[in-house]
């Protein structure tokens, strides 16, 4: 009977669609598939790129890798789905990806109307302007009548309109599709100003022939909290992503790094480190994982600061200062709830 009903089912689906089994929690699904399906961007300097060997690297894939390390103990057990600004939310809502880590701004409507859940913020960004130094512009308010290169379909487009309207200055939008296209257009002088998130400006500027000939204006005209997100309706899964991210931030705060984590895991004087790394209590069981989940994530991917410095920090060509993305103890606004 079972055979027949299965046959009938697949026949009914016109031989084209197979149900992937009854949907239990996302964690169970991920465990049974044996890998995490992670939505990332199609390429954004520092945040998502392929290395020479063809593997995805960057600040955003690092989140996926940390989650895979926590669940499987293997950062390779991630499959990446590249999504564009237009396909990312559908890919997540339709279940094509389990988590979206794709420099996506947390906004009210995305969190509520699109039925998604942002589980945290891994980068506080804001929209800025870059102009050639020779224009002699020192403030965005001097940009009256300027032509502005702007990526379509993003929040930056809306922010720009809002900002120029409130300040009652005119501009001419030059719509472009990708960061790279923007750079080319900007260099060719087809627009006077390039506006995007400050992180994007930093990386674009770093790739110019003479970075010092271009200035990033001091105004930051928007709040762009970027973070990973999941579908509505599976809080257990959201917890895993949220606390993996928090574990990385807390690890930096407590001075746990990928190098010393092995030593610290054997037990320290600090009870919070012990709880985080599983030598005291069993926090992992509360989210359906084992005791060593956070230890693995930190060991294999690193704490927040390490990841930041590796991909976008001062030593990289992108050269972003920690700024607001520093720990609250260092004057930033990164603040993880306690592990207790």
């Amino acid at each position, binding site marked *: 009977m079972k*055979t027949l009903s*299965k*046959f009938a089912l*697949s026949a009914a*689906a016109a*031989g*084209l*669609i*197979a*149900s*992937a*089994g009854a*949907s239990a929690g996302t964690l169970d699904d991920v465990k049974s598939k044996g890998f995490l399906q992670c939505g990332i961007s*199609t*390429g*954004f*300097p*520092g*945040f*998502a*790129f*392929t*290395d*020479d060997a*063809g593997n*995805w*690297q*960057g600040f955003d894939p690092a989140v996926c890798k940390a989650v895979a390390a926590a669940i499987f103990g293997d950062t390779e057990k991630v*499959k990446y*789905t*590249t*999504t*564009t600004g*237009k*396909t990312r939310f*559908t*890919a997540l*809502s*339709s*279940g*094509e990806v389990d988590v979206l880590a794709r420099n996506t701004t947390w906004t009210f409507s995305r969190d509520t109307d699109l039925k998604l859940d942002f589980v945290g913020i891994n980068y506080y960004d804001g929209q800025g302007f870059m102009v050639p130094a020779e224009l002699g512009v020192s403030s965005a308010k001097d940009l009256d009548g300027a032509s502005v290169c702007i990526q379509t379909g993003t929040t930056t487009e809306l922010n720009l309109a809002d900002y120029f309207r409130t300040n009652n200055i005119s501009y001419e939008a030059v719509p472009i599709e*990708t*960061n*790279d296209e923007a*750079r*080319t257009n900007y260099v060719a002088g087809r627009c006077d100003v390039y506006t995007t998130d400050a992180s994007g400006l930093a*990386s674009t500027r*770093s*790739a*110019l022939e003479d970075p010092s000939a271009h200035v990033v204006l001091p105004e930051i005209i928007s709040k762009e909290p970027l973070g990973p997100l999941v579908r509505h309706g599976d809080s257990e899964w959201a917890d895993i992503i949220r606390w993996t991210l928090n574990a990385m931030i807390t690890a930096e705060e407590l001075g746990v790094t990928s190098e010393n984590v092995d030593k610290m895991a054997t037990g320290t004087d600090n009870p919070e480190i012990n709880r985080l790394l599983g030598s005291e209590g069993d926090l992992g069981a509360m989210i359906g994982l084992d005791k060593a989940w956070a230890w693995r994530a930190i060991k294999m991917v690193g704490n927040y600061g390490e990841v930041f410095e590796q991909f976008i920090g001062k030593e*990289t*060509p*992108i050269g972003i200062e920690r700024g607001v993305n520093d720990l609250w103890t260092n004057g930033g606004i990164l603040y993880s709830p306690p592990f207790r």
Partner: protein
Amino acid sequence: METATRAYPPGEHPDQKPPIGQSGVLYWMHKNLFSSPFNVILTLLTAYFLYLLLPPLFGWLMIDSVFVADSRDHCRELGSGACWGFIGKRLGQFTYGFYPHDERWRVVLCFALFVAACVPILWDGAPNRKKWLYFAAAFPFIAFWLLIGGNGSIAAYGILFALVVVPVVYFSPIDDADGADTGGLTYVLLAVWAFLLIGLQNIFFSTDVDIGIGGLGNVMRTLITLLLIGLTMVPLFHRGMAGKLRRQWATGFFALAALWHFVGGTNFGFSSDHLLTIVDTDQFGGFMLTMVIGVTGIVVSLPLGILLALGRQSDLHIIRWVCTGFIEFIRGVPLIALLFVASTMLNYFLPPGSNFDLLLRVLIMVVLFSAAYLAEVVRGGLQAIPKGQTEAADAMGLRYWQSMRLIVLPQALKISIPGIVNTFIGLFKDTTLVVIIGLLDPLGIGRASLSDTKWQGLSTEVYVFIAIFFFICCFSMSRYSIYLENKLHTGHRED
């Protein structure tokens, strides 16, 4: 020495040199470059622009360029021209996308087989062409198996498919007493449908139906399937059979084989261990993805487009309306919109948790899009055929499909060749649009690679490199179309 006129026998007069000043480089230049003051000015201007353009271009492309480097900064130290070292480092990515390293030989083999399969189709002078055609017909299935992996049953289907289809399409006696051609066509359509259905079911939605009779059962199952398939093909070799019986025999056993296959198990007797590791289509990328989309689009959309064109001219109202409606709808919608429907909208319509391969969705959309355009191109050809041709075919007693296949389509398609190839070239280039829905074709790979801070800012190199690839592909297609036109040129044209 007298200068008497020497008499030559007819046809043996030796060629004389042209008068001085009427041949050679100088004459050619005078005639083509400096024939009038206006042309002199044009020539000089062009030469000046070439002088301005070419040296820096060659300098950038070749002389100052760097072929081996570790990063953009390294490139800049070594030379001021193009940084081909970047492309060199990423050549694997540009070619295979994210296809696993250890499995890349499959892509290479598949491409080699593709070239081999093209030969008998594109060149009718190929030795042993008839035998090669079997291979060409089986190739899509073999390619499918090579690229996706699995237990090889799809390749087995391909061989069966070729055995069934090639004889019917190419070598069947068309003047069978009972009008077997119509039967043959039904047979082909049925076979294609059944194979496609089973194949798709098998590959994408492996419902591992197990009736639990173990190892011996496996062997039995295979033997029975093969027996049924064998019986299906009896009419092909037994020419004495009446057309109607042939038809019924073939369809009947075919249905039985298909049914047995569904109920009896998905494997063709190969163990359920995968002979080739499964590679998900989301790991396809780069030129390989372009070729997969382009070639599938071209191969599938041509027959579909011809059917649509015939349907649009049909006397049967419903068929005509459906075909016209389909063509007009697809032509009225941009390809990007169709791709977005494929990538985002379909997910909302399908039941949650269903996994309908994105690449397959894209392929379907690309095929439908290009078929609609082809249908109109072919319709143009059909309308150029005088009505007398079909009337003559009718008078000869040919049935509809016979007259189409033997009289109308060969002429109509010949006229439509430039238009058809034009559509193909357009389709091939349109494959780059998939980058918008997140599939990484060469442009997408380029974007992902350029995001590596080590190499950031080398977009010109990437675009030039990709442009060269597309130029080679499209130019070959265009040259082939010219070759075909000349070959089929029957002298009805004034030139």
